[in-house]
């Protein structure tokens, strides 16, 4: 092939559904546009820089970078590599040169919807959320979820906890313990955004029999009968679209993808998938209906949500 795309992940791809989607996206784009593709996985901040440099050095036409971790690096590297196009998925930077493009998501819109469901379904009036690490990005999940809960159930209390520890994005043991602890404290609806830890939360749900919510892709089959709904993030679609636009010569492309653009979603909104999803939401049509209603308000702008990432 005459074109060469490189996807640089910010972390180990592993079971991280989001990063896996990025890999799927680059492969799809490669097929669609006839390009060789490669994936460079990073583990550390230093790796990220080295990988981006290596991608340029290996002559990539388009370097796709997933995650906000690459902002500084792109700022440094892009001006020195005018022949390479950089696509940052998930965040954008100011004062970009022409060869830097962005595609961002408004995950908090979907998280808010999931919060709405949890707020309606809780019987104890206590809900919980576990994030991997107390970082701003994950507040898009945790805070938006909490806001969603409060919007339908002002009395409900939301317990926000973090996995932390030595290995926050892949510590199912601690994730599970957090979920168990929250459940013991009364929470019956728990949202998990813990990457590798999600499995731990699912196990806790199976053992202690409570409802969970998760992120990125349909995880309902991982704990049948316990996952109510998940937020979806269409990284692959976004990537293919953005790469197409870049190949057509677009400069400083910016794509922002929320509910409206179909960049994020939840199972409840996907009426054709709903029945076979294995998600509990299928058994709660009134909740799904409410979620669709709120989604409509968000899409038409009548309900405005703050991006929790920049809060504080």
């Amino acid at each position, binding site marked *: 092939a005459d074109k060469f795309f490189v996807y640089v992940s910010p972390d180990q791809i592993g079971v991280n559904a989001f990063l896996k989607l990025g890999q799927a996206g680059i492969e799809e784009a490669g097929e669609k546009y006839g390009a060789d593709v490669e994936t460079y996985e990073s583990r550390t901040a230093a790796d990220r820089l080295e990988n981006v440099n290596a991608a340029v050095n290996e002559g990539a036409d388009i370097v796709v970078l997933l995650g906000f971790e690459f902002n500084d690096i792109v700022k440094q590297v892009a001006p020195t590599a005018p022949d390479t196009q950089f696509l940052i998925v998930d965040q954008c930077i100011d004062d970009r040169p022409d060869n830097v493009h962005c595609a961002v998501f408004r995950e908090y819109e979907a998280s808010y919807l999931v919060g709405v469901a949890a707020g309606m379904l809780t019987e104890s009036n206590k809900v919980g959320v576990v994030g991997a690490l*107390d970082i701003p990005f994950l507040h898009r999940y945790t805070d938006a979820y909490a806001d969603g809960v409060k919007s339908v159930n002002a009395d409900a209390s939301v317990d926000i906890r973090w996995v*932390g520890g030595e290995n926050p994005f892949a510590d199912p*043991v*601690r994730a599970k313990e957090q979920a168990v602890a929250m459940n013991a404290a009364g929470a019956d609806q728990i949202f998990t955004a813990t990457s590798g830890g999600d*499995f731990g939360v699912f196990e806790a749900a199976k053992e202690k029999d409570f409802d969970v919510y998760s992120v990125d892709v349909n995880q309902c089959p991982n704990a049948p009968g316990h996952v109510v709904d998940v937020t979806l993030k269409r990284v692959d679609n976004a990537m293919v679209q953005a790469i197409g636009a870049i190949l057509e010569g677009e400069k400083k492309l910016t794509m922002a993808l929320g509910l409206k653009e179909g960049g994020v979603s939840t199972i409840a909104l996907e009426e054709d998938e709903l029945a076979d999803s294995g998600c509990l939401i299928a058994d709660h049509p009134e909740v799904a209906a409410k979620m669709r209603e709120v989604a409509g308000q968000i899409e038409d702008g009548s309900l405005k949500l703050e991006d929790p990432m920049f809060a504080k």
Partner: protein
Amino acid sequence: MFELIADPSFAASIPRFVTPILLAALGGALCERAGVFNIALEGFLLVGAFAAVLGAYFSGTPYIGALTAMVAGMALGVVFAEFNVRRGGDSIVVSIAINLLAAGLTTFFLRAIFDVTGAFSDPAIAGFSPIRLPFIENVPLLGPILSGQALPFYLALLSVPFLHVFLARHRLGLRIRAAGENPQALRAGGVSPKRVQLLALIACGALCGLGGAQLSIANVNLFVENMSAGRGWIAVVAVLLTRGRPWPLFFIALLFGAVDSLSFRVQGLGLAQQFTDMMPYLATLIVLVALSWWRARRAKGDAS
């Protein structure tokens, strides 16, 4: 705060935190007593966790999983012995290398065997199910701690008195202590200290392997890279602190497990996660300082 501690799920979680640390520390204690300075418990645990998943996945039973983990740990013990005991490599160097080797091999085989990076989870991984103890489970405070845990926990509990008696009265236990204290004398008695140290390392590998199995197929049912997540280091500290004596070791491991378990529960009280993460390490430091202060006092008291 009180609510947190009274919560039965807190009590029930303690054994899950304690077991890997305790098993690794008991293994480390055998090495310590045999005069092998093994600070690679982290690596031993990790290999155990991986091998347990491997065995449990392909056999479909957690027992084979635990057995695989123990065998893998024993193999790592042999590697340690080869380089430290037989070739005379510095124990700290060998330990660091073993830790690296464990991290490298587990991630490497994770990718080579299961074709994933980061983590491997599959319904086919057969985990331990909780064992209910008929009468004990109804005892108020102890019930949730002692009943409903996985097999490795009970084995760990039994190991403590067993190792105590073993070191005091068993032929090999005697020789292990001799190898640690005055290997020259053991050699003069016609027993090769190196052989004894090899055996201690193998036993250490088996115990750590079981500890790893608790992490990966009892606490959860999956393997994640670097899953030991510092627990081996805590075990090392426990061994150094107690000079490898089983009973004190048990209480120290219990303390660490409880603090660890407590530490992220207090997140619920609004403490920043960074500070709760710090707690086990600070608790360890405090115990260390207190212990040496107490020892110094006692030594003084003794002399006067």
